[in-house]
């Protein structure tokens, strides 16, 4: 423990919180982006492989990652392109799949409290994916102060990993993982592992009802409708549960 912790008489938790709040945006951003880089590169590699296997050129795969930067909808784009879907219909379908992202910015700003800032929001919002949102939220819950520098490093670090992974996968080609089923299985589990780890990082007993309702609604929406409906149902049902639960139960929730 450093001198400040001793002099102010803080307990271990308070001291850890203070140290996290004092960490520079650059250092905090680099620390938070590491799991995203490690998770994004292999998934993007899989995307590049899948895209070239489905007949897209390497340039087309990279173009999708460069402009869209939304993992799940990019995999869907491969299927839509390969299936010959009309461009406008396919574009709107992909955009609809990403509509859940409207909740992410306000949620982070609400968590930022007095530190909220949006001067560069037009820039860091571009990279506000599911995983970047989850990592940012996890850091804020642990005491990291919000800053736009932190968001830029987090978002564009993840973006760089996504582009590099896509390029590597496209370069490797469509059959790159055919002889490596164990590697393929590990890559397939990378995103679930990342989301589970992020969930654990923000988990507290107060949020259990929100999480359980969100999970149940996701299963029901997917089962009776589609994967996209399941995503919407889970997020909205969980958030509504947070509203309807007694306020003391969610006032500190992520």
């Amino acid at each position, binding site marked *: 423990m450093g001198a400040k912790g001793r002099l102010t008489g803080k307990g271990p938790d308070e001291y850890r919180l203070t140290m996290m709040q004092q960490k520079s945006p650059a250092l905090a951003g680099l620390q938070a982006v590491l799991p995203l880089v490690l998770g994004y590169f292999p998934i993007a590699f899989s995307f590049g492989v899948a895209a070239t296997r489905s007949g897209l050129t390497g340039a087309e795969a990279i173009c999708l990652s460069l402009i869209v930067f939304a993992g799940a909808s990019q995999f869907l784009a491969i299927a839509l392109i390969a299936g010959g879907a009309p461009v406008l219909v396919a574009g709107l379908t992909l955009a609809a799949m990403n509509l859940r992202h409207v909740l992410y910015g306000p949620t982070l700003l609400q968590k930022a409290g007095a530190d909220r800032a949006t001067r560069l929001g037009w820039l860091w919002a571009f990279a506000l994916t599911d995983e970047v949102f989850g990592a940012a939220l996890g850091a804020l819950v642990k005491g990291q102060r919000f800053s736009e520098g932190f968001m830029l490093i987090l978002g564009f670090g993840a973006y760089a990993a996504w582009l590099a992974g896509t390029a590597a996968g496209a370069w490797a080609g469509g059959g790159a993982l055919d002889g490596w089923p164990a590697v393929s299985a590990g890559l397939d589990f990378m995103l679930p592992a990342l989301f589970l780890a992020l969930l654990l990082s923000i988990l507290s007993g107060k949020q259990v009802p929100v999480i359980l309702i969100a999970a149940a609604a996701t299963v029901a929406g997917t089962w009776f409708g589609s994967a996209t409906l399941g995503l919407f149902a889970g997020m909205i049902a969980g958030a509504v549960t*947070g509203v309807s639960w007694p306020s003391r139960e969610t006032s500190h929730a992520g």
Partner: protein
Amino acid sequence: MRAEVLELALIAGALTYLWRYLPLRANLSDTAPNGLLARFLAATGPAAIATLFVAEMLPLLQAPLAQQGRVVVGVLAVLAAYAWRRSVVFATLAGACACGAAAALGLS
């Protein structure tokens, strides 16, 4: 590069960007800490991450039963690794490695 792929990327990319950016312009500074909107947004984070985890798991759990062993191994590895080190990086890598190792050992 085919023009239709570029058009698709531009339509999907532009709208996705608007979903992410436009809500930032909403002024939330005068939101009551325990008001409906604040509670909705506070619950959105855990709800979103739980939803995304379940959405990622469902296709894996719809695979043949023989293939689900490696998923169970991966989940257990994430839980154990996070309990041990409290690190998202370590837990993510441990889960993926355990799942891949289980597949290599025949749980696939």
